[in-house]
Every structure is written in C-alpha cells, then in structure tokens.
C-alpha cells in the first residue's frame, strides 16, 4: 500500500538522491512532487523576489511521462522526476526569457537552451524560471535592486541580499522551493549567491557546459552551472548538462562523469591556501568560523601548503574583458536608448562607457590573460586545489549600496582576495560550499582546481559535507 505523502520540510529540503529514492520506491509520483514544489515556489518565490516565471503546466505535462516510465521501471538516472528551476537567462522556446531586464520583459526565443534540453532528456522537470540581476550584471551594478524582479533576498534574512547575478537560483534552492537550480557565472555569479544563500554551487570549467540558448555577457568567460543542496547533487546535475554542443563555439568537446571515488587520495592532495585570507581579509566576526572550517579540511588528512596567486591586476583584466565584450553585445540596446530603462542607472552608464574602450585595451587584457593561464598551470604543478573563503563577509544589507566598502582599507598581502576574478579569467572550475554561520547568515569556502578537475572538487566537497552539517541547515520559511 502506498504511504501517505507528508509535505513537510523534510521533503522540500531533500537532496536529489533522497527524492530519487522516494520516486523509485513509488512513495510519491513525479506529478505529485511537481505539484508540491510548484505550490511552494509560487507561494514563497515572490517573498524572496526569486520567481521569474511559474511553469507548473509545462512541468506536469512532462511529469506524467516520467511517471509512465517509472511505472514500467524504465529508470534514466537520479534526475528522473526531479523538479528544478533555471535562471531566467536560459531560453525556453516561446516562453518569456527576460534576462531580468525591463527592456526584455516580453522577449521570447524560438528555441530552448541546450542545458534545459539535456535536463529534460534525463527526466528532470523545469518547474520555474528564476529571477536574476538584470543582464547578469552587465554594465556593473551598484545596488541589490538591479533587477526587474526587485532585490533578491537571502532566505536567512530578507533584509540581506541573496547575491548575484544568479539571485533567484540561490534563494530558491536555499528556501527549499526547488531541489536544484541552474545559474550562470561570468565572474562570481554562481559562487556569490551560493555563499550568501548557504547552498552548494559549482562553476564548471569554461567550455564544459554549453551556453547555447543562454544570454551572452562575455563570450570568453560565461559558464552555466548547478546550484544544489550538496556537492554530490552538483555532480549529478553536472553529469547531465556537460558535454559537446556544436551550437556553442567554445564547447570543449568533453563529457563529465560523476566518479568522485576515483579522485586522488586525500593524503596525497595538496591544498594551497593563504593564511592572510582567514586572519585578515575575512570580516572579524567570521574569522573563528572560517578557522574552524579550515580545521575540518585539515582533519581530512590533506597536505596544506601556503601559497600565493600569480601577481596580476585581476580586477583591471576582468573588467576590461567583460566590459569590451558586453559593449559589443549590448550596443543595440544602448543605441536604442532602452538601456536607460534598467533599474540601476549605473548599469546603463557602464554599458554606454563600455562602447568607448579601445581595442588595444581589450587585446592587451586578452594577451595578459594568456600569461595568467600559463602561470596558473605552473602553480598547479605543485598544488592540486586552492582553498579560500568564497566571500570574506556575509550577505550585504539590501538597503546599502553594494560598493560602499570599495574604498575601505585592505590588508597589505593580497592573499586569494582576487581568486574569483582570477579563476574566471583562467577558465578554472570552482565549488562553493557552506562552512558556517555568522549572525544568522551563511559563509562559505571555495575550492578551485585545474580545468576539468570537477570530480576532485566534488570529492573534497563531499568529504567536507560528510564531516559537517552546514549544508543541511534550513532557514525558517513561511
């Protein structure tokens, strides 16, 4: 006899593996699960400004087919029958894809993003499109409210920002509105909301996951990746979305198979870190929690090695490359005058200014980028992964400008303070995992590795999450 379904937090905060077991055991059907999550994301999504487009009908239609398969014991893997959300920069044929920006509020495309087609093939059910910072932050945003959906809120405290630009993806996973979500990163847009919302996010190696059907912000830096409840879930989703795509010219023509059991033994793993990150860069109230997290990594038996990042002006490089490429991409928007409709005037101004960047600056930055890649290859000859706080502080208060601390004094040693920029420039994969709480808000560690070392990063994350319960913490939701 079928068990009575209990729609409790235990269900909504289950991992993919746990939900998959319930579906296989026929404790719950894919249609029932889809309705349960659709109810929740429709009811609570607006509370966090996380919902862009409810897609219940779309998901239920596909869930019925999944249930037929499950009934006949045609199992297609862990994602079969699992609802999920996607950042609203990924197109679904003939449905609105807003890129979080008012000028595109009614835009539709005649095709569906490759990653969404791949997830559909694995049986996952797109239940909602999720809010984001307008144009994924193109032009440079200065306020949390830089979105047609309003400021993204972390479910841990609605007065604080969810992080961006994958803001809805972060808060929806954290609040148990979807079991997992897709986000995208050009420079920090998966890692930052993962840290501020307390979820586990994976930025894949550049080229591993197709961007076809995703808004372009910077052709040479954009990546699409999963935001989940655990490192293991990130591995399961990455396996489904990675792989060759002839529609994406940057496709690395590689697949990914989630096999962390074959990653290097922890006793052989050399973990590079910079003590100054934990002692001086981290906000004072977070230092004890970061130290404790560092202690857990040490207890895993890895070799901790003090190291430094190659010395480059990472902010100047990242900014020049992204601004030059976004200028070319959004030139029609600027020339039409519609960029002025963006919620943050700084973005419209930034896009206008980006049209003036000389070609020599872009080329110089791209030439230096070759050297950055070369020097990271050299660094990784002696180190397997780099470890640092994902963000040095907790989620900022929404009411304050995001650049209010830009002129604050900084420690004399740079440590890994520019690791997000550097990692994105070099196309490196990264995993962000929750590692503690400060004043009720989550903090996180990032692990960064050589290109295509996702299994190693996930193995580190999985082991860390076996030893801690930070990723299992749940915010109070309505």
């Amino acid at each position, binding site marked *: 006899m079928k068990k009575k379904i209990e729609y409790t937090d235990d269900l909504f905060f289950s991992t993919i593996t746990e939900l998959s077991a319930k579906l296989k055991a026929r404790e719950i059907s894919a249609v029932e699960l889809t309705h349960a999550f659709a109810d929740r994301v429709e009811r609570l999504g607006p509370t966090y400004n996380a919902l862009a487009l409810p897609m219940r009908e779309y998901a239920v239609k596909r869930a019925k087919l999944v249930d037929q398969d499950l009934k006949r014991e045609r199992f297609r893997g862990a994602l079969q029958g699992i609802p999920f959300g996607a950042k609203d920069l990924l197109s679904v044929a003939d449905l609105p894809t807003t890129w979080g920006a008012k000028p595109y509020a009614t835009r539709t495309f005649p095709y569906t993003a490759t990653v969404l087609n791949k997830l559909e093939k694995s049986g996952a059910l797109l239940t909602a499109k999720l809010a984001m910072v307008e144009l994924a932050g193109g032009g440079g945003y200065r306020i949390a409210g830089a979105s047609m959906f309003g400021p993204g809120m972390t479910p841990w405290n609605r007065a604080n920002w969810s992080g961006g630009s994958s803001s809805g993806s972060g808060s929806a996973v954290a609040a148990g509105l979807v079991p997992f979500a897709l986000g995208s990163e050009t420079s920090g847009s998966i890692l930052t909301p993962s840290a501020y919302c307390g979820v586990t996010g994976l930025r894949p190696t550049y080229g591993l996951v197709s961007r076809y059907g995703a808004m372009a912000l910077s*052709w*040479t830096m954009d990546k699409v990746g999963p935001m989940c409840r655990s490192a293991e879930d990130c591995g399961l989703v990455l396996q489904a979305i990675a792989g060759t795509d002839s529609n994406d*010219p940057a496709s690395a023509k590689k697949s990914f198979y989630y096999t962390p059991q074959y990653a290097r033994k922890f006793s052989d793993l050399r973990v590079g870190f910079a003590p100054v990150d934990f002692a001086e860069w981290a906000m004072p109230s977070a230092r004890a929690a970061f130290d404790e997290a560092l202690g857990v990594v040490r207890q895993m038996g890895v070799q901790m090695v003090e190291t430094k990042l190659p010395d480059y002006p990472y902010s100047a490089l990242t900014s020049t490359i992204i601004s030059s490429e976004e200028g070319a991409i959004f030139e029609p928007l600027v020339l039409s005058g519609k960029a002025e409709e963006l919620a943050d005037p700084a973005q419209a*101004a930034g896009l*206008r200014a980006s049209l003036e960047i000389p070609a020599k600056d872009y080329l*110089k930055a791209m*030439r230096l*980028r070759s050297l950055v890649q070369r020097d990271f290859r050299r660094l990784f000859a002696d180190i397997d992964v780099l470890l640092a706080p994902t963000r040095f502080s907790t989620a900022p208060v929404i009411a304050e400008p995001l650049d209010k601390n830009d002129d604050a004094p900084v420690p004399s040693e740079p440590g890994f303070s520019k690791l997000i920029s550097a990692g994105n420039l070099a196309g490196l994969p990264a995993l962000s995992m929750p590692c503690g709480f400060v004043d009720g808000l989550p903090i996180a560690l990032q692990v960064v590795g050589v290109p295509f070392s996702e299994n190693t990063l996930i193995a580190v994350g999985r082991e860390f999450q076996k030893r801690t319960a930070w990723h299992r913490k749940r915010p109070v939701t309505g």
Partner: protein
Amino acid sequence: MKQKWTRREIARWGLAIPVLFSRTGVNAQTAAAADAATDPFAKARAGNKAHSETLAKIEMPMSTEPAFVFRA
C-alpha cells in the same frame, strides 16, 4: 575695477572660481573625481581609464598572443 564687493558676490565668486579653474584644466583631476562621484557615466569612464593605465604599465613579449577561443 570694482572696489567694493558685497558678501553675496564674494560667496558666488568663491564657488565659481574653482569650477572655472577645473574646467580649464588647472584642476581637471579634481573635477573628474567630483564628476565621478555624482555621475555614473563619468564614474564608469574613469574606471575604464584607470584600468587602461594599469594595463599599459605592464610589459610583455610581442609574441604573447591573446587568449581567444578559436576552433577551426
């Protein structure tokens, strides 16, 4: 030449002179900084210029090619 100035005239010129100087290049940097603080376009432009100057200072071999992604 006018010998007596009212308080109001002194105050007006006191404000206008630095602005005049800044616009004529005497204090252009201060003016740019002031513009950047209030005008987001000027701020973005100043940021791009600063990045450009940072990059220009770095020397590298002529053989260093850009890191474009290109597949034939």
